[in-house]
């Protein structure tokens, strides 16, 4: 286990370095913040001065080493757009994203578990078809559109929920429902297929042979095993969750990391983009490491593998 964690952390560092090189060079290939910040009456000399000021005149390798050595001690510099330290902007946005992501995750699981389990147990029934249609919808209908439809129904037509922003807990309902719907589909499908597999296994037969009631067979013996296989895809789901959050943040004007990244790109704010991507990367990797550790801890086959 210790070895596993150490290996993973080393892998994480390598990935981060690669990610930093990638993002650093990609944004420099694709854009020029000096061109964007330059005002329209500027002369060629103004342009050159601005490049010096932004540190873009140095050789790209030197720029990179400057950036990475500062980033290593947590200094991502000032945003070129508003001169606010990147870390402060991220610190403000991250908790909002985390709260949204967590509520959605809980919501998604609490919808997906009954949906996936019952549709596996009642395979081929009307309920199963219904549940699969719902799950299919959640994945094929664009999240963007789902968000707008929910706003139309609950905020505009019924006036029972706010449409955007994040002042009160009521503000969480629509965005997290939207994101949860998107996540739920994947969970429900995975859960259904792994439940089908588990329900067909010998140990489920043994439980039935022992006279264990059907509900206990399903909710205790089978579900626990199926949840493990959902958890084993944890890392992937965290990445999906992050992507979903970015979309949902735009629709619901949610002041999170996704919007921050979007602004960074629109403004060609190199330090901000670099910071968001790297810190976002660290978070995704750390949380997927954590789910892997959790998985290993919960599954005795890994925990007690000597």
């Amino acid at each position, binding site marked *: 286990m210790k070895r596993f964690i150490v290996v993973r952390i080393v892998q994480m560092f390598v990935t981060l370095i690669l990610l930093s090189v990638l993002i650093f060079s990609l944004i420099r290939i694709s854009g020029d913040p000096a061109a964007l910040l330059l005002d329209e009456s500027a002369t060629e000399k103004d342009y050159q001065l601005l490049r010096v000021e932004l540190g873009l005149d140095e050789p790209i390798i030197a720029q990179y080493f400057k950036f990475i050595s500062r980033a290593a001690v947590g200094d991502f510099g000032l945003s070129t757009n508003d001169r606010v330290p990147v870390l402060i902007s991220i610190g403000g946005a991250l908790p909002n994203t985390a709260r949204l992501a967590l509520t959605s995750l809980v919501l998604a699981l609490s919808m997906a578990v009954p949906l996936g389990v019952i549709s596996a147990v009642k395979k081929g029934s009307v309920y199963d078809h219904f549940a699969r249609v719902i799950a299919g919808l959640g994945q094929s209908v664009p999240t963007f559109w789902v968000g707008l439809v929910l706003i139309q129904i609950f905020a505009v037509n019924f006036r029972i929920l706010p449409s955007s922003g994040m002042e009160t807990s009521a503000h969480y309902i629509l965005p997290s429902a939207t994101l949860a719907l998107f996540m739920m589909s994947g969970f429900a499908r995975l859960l259904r297929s792994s439940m089908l597999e588990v329900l067909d296994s010998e140990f489920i037969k043994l439980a039935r*042979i022992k*006279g*264990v009631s059907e509900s206990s067979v399903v909710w205790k013996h089978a579900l626990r095993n199926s949840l*493990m296989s959902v958890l084993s895809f944890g890392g992937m789901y965290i990445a999906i969750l992050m992507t979903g959050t970015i979309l949902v943040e735009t629709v619901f004007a949610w002041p999170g990391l996704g919007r921050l990244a979007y602004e960074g790109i629109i403004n060609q704010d190199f330090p901000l983009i670099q910071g968001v991507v790297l810190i976002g990367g660290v978070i995704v990797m750390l949380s997927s490491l954590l789910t892997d550790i959790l998985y290993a801890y919960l599954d005795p086959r890994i925990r007690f593998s000597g």
Partner: protein
Amino acid sequence: MTQPLLKVTDLKTQFRTKWGLVKAVDGVSFHVKHGETFGIVGESGSGKSVTSLSIMRLIPQPAGRIVSGAIELDGLNLLELSEKEMRDYRGGKIGMILQDPLSSLNPLFTIGSQIIEGLRIHTSLKGRSLKERAIDLLRRVHIPSPAMRMKDWPHLLSGGMRQRVVGAISISCEPELLIADEPTTALDATIQLQYLNLLKRIQKETRLSIIFVTHDLGAVAYLCHRAAVMYAGRIVETATVKDLFDKPAHPYTIGLLNSMQKVEKKADHIESIKGQPPNLKNLPIGCSFAPRCDQVKDICKEKYPEETELGADHLVRCWVVKKEAVKIK
């Protein structure tokens, strides 16, 4: 004449599949006496497991269905019980051991909790005595340091050990009938023998009845009092083990015995019964063995053979045998 413990009459179990109706068990009748070990032998796909699961009423739903027949335990037809009443029989009066020891235990629960789970359902034991009973069961199936094993996870045990645990679970609530569906196929030879001995001892100690399902005629000879030979969802011959080996009547039984002896004599080539195993979706009208039978007559292809009684407890379904029996009489 005392009543048998289990009496199965004209059992028919079918599966609806994409490819059509599969008559997995098609009119099977047999009985198991108190304290008797009854073997069921047959090729793969002949319907042995479906017969066993039908007795447990655990045919996979909704594809499978017991179409007709009766399964009487001590005179009570199990097919007429409600699902809830049937649950008391499963793991209670009827125990069962499945074929695959590697995957029969739930990987996320300890050995102990999986034994105790059944005890909780079927006995009135509580707390410490539950645990003591479980440890005692492990001891009875020869698990070393049983108290420590209680807290172990299934994956830490060898295949043989796991099969013993499954055995312990199956007898945990003192069943009257134990169904062992090929309990040793997945184990290697020495462990197979140990396990058979274990079953034999348990049977002696508890005087329960066992249905022993197998491919292996040798195991039948070693363990059983009587046995039935299944072919294509039907029983073609039932006899005491002695009669079965000394006076096999059905051409299929004879074929089985021949191929077994060839194995034992270590012949250069194993001669199994020629021809393809039957296709249950498309059985011939007459005797299902006809396409492979070397004694086949015209009538065999037209009518399914009636049952012929060759002696006490010796039943066989074959036109040729019937003719000869009539001649002798």
